């Protein structure tokens, strides 16, 4: 390790750092990660986190990784600069994730590293005993995580007042003792003498948006996006990783005069949500994989009855119960085609945590304007990771919705063939004296059942054409990088960051590469065919299976739609988010790029020569 200065003038300055905390799920490593992430947010720095959840019930090994710093941070980092290892297994399982020149901070009460390993700097600190000593009494090693937070704060010269403020906020509801103990642990970690470990994180180069940054995870952003959109009603059944959205809404909606119902199963849940919507209260239901499979029949009703509804699927590893705590993007086909019959509906996917907020608002708007169910396909990675972004401009954005029970004119029809359906909720007086019927049977313009062949054709067209009308006015997805060239990288959902970074590295290596993250998956935005024609290879990168014919799910849809043989797939099903390097290597192989390491940080920043 080359950095050595101890005075602040000589402290090496680094653009960003990747810290991996490895322990067991009970150790509160999520908490340290959360503090660091929120601190970054409050310091106008960029931040992204990544965590694993043990699939066993009683805890088990768990990690939390946080990347923070200046510049645009798009992924949580393929490899780490700092590894904090609480146990021997943490050390052994995660040593390889450390970049050469990186720093291993290990709990010398529990870990014995390999003494011959000279590639990294290993620093042993008696985290457990030091914590017990600092805090004393009954709480024992419980503050170990806060001790480590203190250590890292000193190491990267982080903002102490802000952090202690965060600690106080976090433990605010609890007893004074708890806050005091936490601060004792923090101070002890901060005071640990390791003068060789001193860095300074560069200030953000991203122009601050003029708005303060907020730091949160994708599920929270989705929930509050719905609230901002005016959604006040919902119903669901718990399932990982969906549950936290319903927990947030169940707790929050009553504050807004709304209501969230926990139902006996997912079928009851979507039914109750549809009942809310029918009553004029645009509603939301959601689940993860298995729960979505149960909603398919009722979702078909929503299409047939033309009932607005928002459905969230926080995707996890499938099929069946699959890998409940892992990431996968394998529910796209089901989102579009899972119900029997031709049942067109809208499918959207957020590209990151911030987008969860805005896409939730868009979903609500589309559901209302087009009287259609809208499925939001989030995923386990976006749901659980923490990012910092500009606080939304709420006064501008917030929507106020109420059932529209104004009287309707005598020519009111619930299913007019020449207009998009907008239901009159009960309570609306009908000048005609005839009250409308809503049904999952094929029906005429007044909603009365009809088995007329001609009517079925017309109503099928009506339901299709409104979605086509929506398609026509969708914004084209943002095309980054080269606007034409060798490779167009396409992704959806959580692959946004790694793809954008991969694009950067490939361009740095001389390839002409563009990147397009698709947020509108059904219907597609206009103009894609033309964009595709400008590239030699269109590589669709997804976390799902290659399918019987070699194509992932979005790739299959794009090929069917555009019949462009340049569309190919990069897929994987290991339950983990893409590393930038995985993508770069795939693309390099495809286009015969020899040196894929350009732009890749091989050595840890911590090992770099002093730059100022």
């Amino acid at each position: 390790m080359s950095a050595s200065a101890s005075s602040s003038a000589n402290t090496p300055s680094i653009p960003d750092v990747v810290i991996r905390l490895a322990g067991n799920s009970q150790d509160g490593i999520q908490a340290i990660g959360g503090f660091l992430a929120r601190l970054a947010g409050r310091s106008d720095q960029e931040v992204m986190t990544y965590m694993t959840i043990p699939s066993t019930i009683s805890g088990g090994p768990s990690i939390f990784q946080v990347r923070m710093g200046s510049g645009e941070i798009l992924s949580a980092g393929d490899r780490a600069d700092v590894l904090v290892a609480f146990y021997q297994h943490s050390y052994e399982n995660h040593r390889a994730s450390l970049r050469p020149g990186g720093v291993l901070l290990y709990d010398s009460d529990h870990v014995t590293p390999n003494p011959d390993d000279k590639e990294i700097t290993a620093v042993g600190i008696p985290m457990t005993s030091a914590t017990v000593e600092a805090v004393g009494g009954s709480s024992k090693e419980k503050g170990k995580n806060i001790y480590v937070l203190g250590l890292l704060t000193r190491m990267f010269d982080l903002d102490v007042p802000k952090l202690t403020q965060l600690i106080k906020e976090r433990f605010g509801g609890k007893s004074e003792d708890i806050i005091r103990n936490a601060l004792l642990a923090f101070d002890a970690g901060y005071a640990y003498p390791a003068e060789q470990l001193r860095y300074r994180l560069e200030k953000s180069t991203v122009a601050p948006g003029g708005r303060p940054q907020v730091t949160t995870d994708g599920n929270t952003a989705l929930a509050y996006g719905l609230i901002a959109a005016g959604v006040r009603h919902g119903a669901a059944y718990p399932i990982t990783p969906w549950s936290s959205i319903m927990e947030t809404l169940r707790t929050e909606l009553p504050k807004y005069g709304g209501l969230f119902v926990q139902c006996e199963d997912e079928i009851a849940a979507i039914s109750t949500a549809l009942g809310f919507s029918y009553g004029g209260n645009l509603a939301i239901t959601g689940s993860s994989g298995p729960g979505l499979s149960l909603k398919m029949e009722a979702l078909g009703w929503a299409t047939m009855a033309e009932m607005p509804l928002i459905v969230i699927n926080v995707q996890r590893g499938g099929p069946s119960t699959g890998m409940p705590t892992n990431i996968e993007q394998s529910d796209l086909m089901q989102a579009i085609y899972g119900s029997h019959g031709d049942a067109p509906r809208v499918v959207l996917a957020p590209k990151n945590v911030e987008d969860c907020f805005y896409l939730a608002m868009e979903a609500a708007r589309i559901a209302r304007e087009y009287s259609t169910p809208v499925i939001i396909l989030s995923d386990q990675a976006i749901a659980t990771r923490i990012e910092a972004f500009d606080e939304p401009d709420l006064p501008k954005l917030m929507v106020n919705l109420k059932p529209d029970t104004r009287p309707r004119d005598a020519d009111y029809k619930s299913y007019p063939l020449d207009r998009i359906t907008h239901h009159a909720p009960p309570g609306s007086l009908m000048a005609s004296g005839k009250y409308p019927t809503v049904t999952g049977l094929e029906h005429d313009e007044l909603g009365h059942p009809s088995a007329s062949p001609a009517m079925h054709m017309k109503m099928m067209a009506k339901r299709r054409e409104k979605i086509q009308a929506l398609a026509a006015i969708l914004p084209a997805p943002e095309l980054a990088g080269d606007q034409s060239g060798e490779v167009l990288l396409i992704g959806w959902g959580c692959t946004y960051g790694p793809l954008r970074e991969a694009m950067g590295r490939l361009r740095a290596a001389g390839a002409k590469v563009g990147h397009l993250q698709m947020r509108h998956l059904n219907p597609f935005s206009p103009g894609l065919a033309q964009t595709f024609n400008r590239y030699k290879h269109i590589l669709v990168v997804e976390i799902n299976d290659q399918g019987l014919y070699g194509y992932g799910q979005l790739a299959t849809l794009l090929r069917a739609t555009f019949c462009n043989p340049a569309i190919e797939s990069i897929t994987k099903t290991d339950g983990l988010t893409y590393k930038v390097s995985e993508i770069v290597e795939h693309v390099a192989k495809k286009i015969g790029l020899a040196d894929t390491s350009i732009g890749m940080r091989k050595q840890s920043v911590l090992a770099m020569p002093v730059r100022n």
Partner: protein
Amino acid sequence: MSSSTVSPAPSLPPEASAKAGAPLTKKALTSDHPTWCPGCGDFAVLASFYKVLEKLQYKQENIVCFGGIGCSSRLPYFVNTYGGHYIHGRVLPFTVGITLGRDDLHVFAFGGDGDGFSIGGNHLVHTARKNPRMTYVIMDNSVYGLTKKQTSPTSPLGFKSKTDPWGALDQPINPMRTLINSGATFVARSHATQVNHMVEMMHKAALHDGFSVVEILSECVEFNDGAFDSSIPRKGGTWSTIELKKNDGSPEDAARHDPTDELAAFKLALEPWPGKFGLFYENKTRPTKNAVEQKLIANTREKTKNASDLELLSKTFARMR
């Protein structure tokens, strides 16, 4: 509910209010011509329901009728109010969403024995334990009518159907027992040949502040002809109604039924077929889900000091800084 400060208010149906000069008549309530087979018991249920609405005189635009799937579930098409047809077996959670989201409406759900006790059996139980303010009418013909004669969960042992040509083998459920056990706060039983009784039961049910269920034996003349003759006097059966306690201290009163006594209701339900008709069980004290959730909202709003939506959400985001 330890932190409650607002006390639970009853969620009584909004005051019945006739439109000036335009009382709600059968004529106004009549919609499409029913597509049932001539002689089907469901016609009488429909006729009785019109009468109930005429009695109640709710605002027409505030009435909602929904069905599941089945012959009986089509009833809402024939009533000119808001309403429609949901999917098979799920009409209860759907109507729960309507009533909980709109306290100003009068919500009625309709269905058959298959819709309610087979595919929809679980929703019945969980709706009942929530006790939403709404009325559910089950037209029990002890057969799957619309799909043309398969065994239903109320088909008696030995009933010959297309799926049990040798006679049904699985023990049927006892609807009254099932309903009482579910926790529904109003449980009554009637018969499609007894219009006055049906009207009385449905009317009481509609006025009940909670989840009220009326099960009506309604003959499927096409596929289960004569099924309910044993309770039709003109076919040699006995029509036996439940006499309710008057609490007049008279000796006869001891033998009368106290509908608030769950165990007595359960015993009544165990009487051999065709059993009794009338009000089996009623619980007027359990608060409705409507009231409980409204109270939660009121308590929560009180804590937020009635902040505006924008203030609330802004505060939340401020905490995420």
